[in-house]
């Protein structure tokens, strides 16, 4: 067991390996207040699961593999996102989920590299089975 550096993370969107500078995978649950008379503290019950995934990186204009070619056309589409936080390898962690691309942003600062970012809503169950041998 060891602490893992982010540089090993692999993200695949709709079959394409997307290289980035940071990504965030967030899972959530609806919370239903089921507090009743006699309870002295709130009581909760879980509901529908959900979540978001976001990724950002340095803009690359390579045709066919850059973010504009790979991600921008997917706006409004539900695609497969695979996240391997510790890289590829038998037994390593993996999350696979269908996700709706809701936002794609390109930012152009005058004194630095052009950057891009993409936001997804998780759609359906997340398969967190570890990578096969």
């Amino acid at each position, binding site marked *: 067991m060891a602490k893992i550096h*982010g*540089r090993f993370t692999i993200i695949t969107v709709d079959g394409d*390996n997307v*290289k980035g500078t940071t*990504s965030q995978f967030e899972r959530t649950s609806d919370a239903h207040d089921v507090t009743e008379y006699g309870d002295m503290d709130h009581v909760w019950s879980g509901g529908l699961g959900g979540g978001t995934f976001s990724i950002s*990186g*340095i803009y*690359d204009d390579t045709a066919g593999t850059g973010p504009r070619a790979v991600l921008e056309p997917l706006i409004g589409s539900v695609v497969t996102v695979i996240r391997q936080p510790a890289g590829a390898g038998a037994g390593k962690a993996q999350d696979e989920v269908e996700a709706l691309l809701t936002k794609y942003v390109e930012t152009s600062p005058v*004194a630095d590299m052009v950057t891009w970012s993409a936001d997804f809503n998780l759609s359906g169950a997340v398969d967190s089975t570890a990578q096969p041998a």
Partner: protein
Amino acid sequence: MNLSAVMTEIGSVLDALTGLRVTPHPVKTIVAPAGVVGYPESITFDVETGRGADRFERLPVMVVVADVTARSTAAEVSKWISGAGALSVKAAFEAHDWASCDDVWLREARFDTVTIAAVDYLAVIMMVDVVGSGEA
């Protein structure tokens, strides 16, 4: 991204500017006006995941002009340091289609006096940032 290949390509861009004697690495002696490509102050690895990009930080590109006290030196150095013009280093870098890296950004220039073989020269030290693939 190969450091030697980047330094060589930077040197070739300088070499295309008329009147500049260029070496793509530090040297012991020069004949002014000269261009010298130095080593970066640092390298940042893993700017992107999956060895997507590395960055050479503040790589010095020096144009050594002439005697710092000479009347003609200001006019001479202005040819190389202007933002545009036939001998503009900045313009040459912006126009070049880089092969050894993705981008070379000349971000700043400062002036100094450098002594080479016991002679004081006015030097323009241009700092460039280089970004390119972390794999090749």
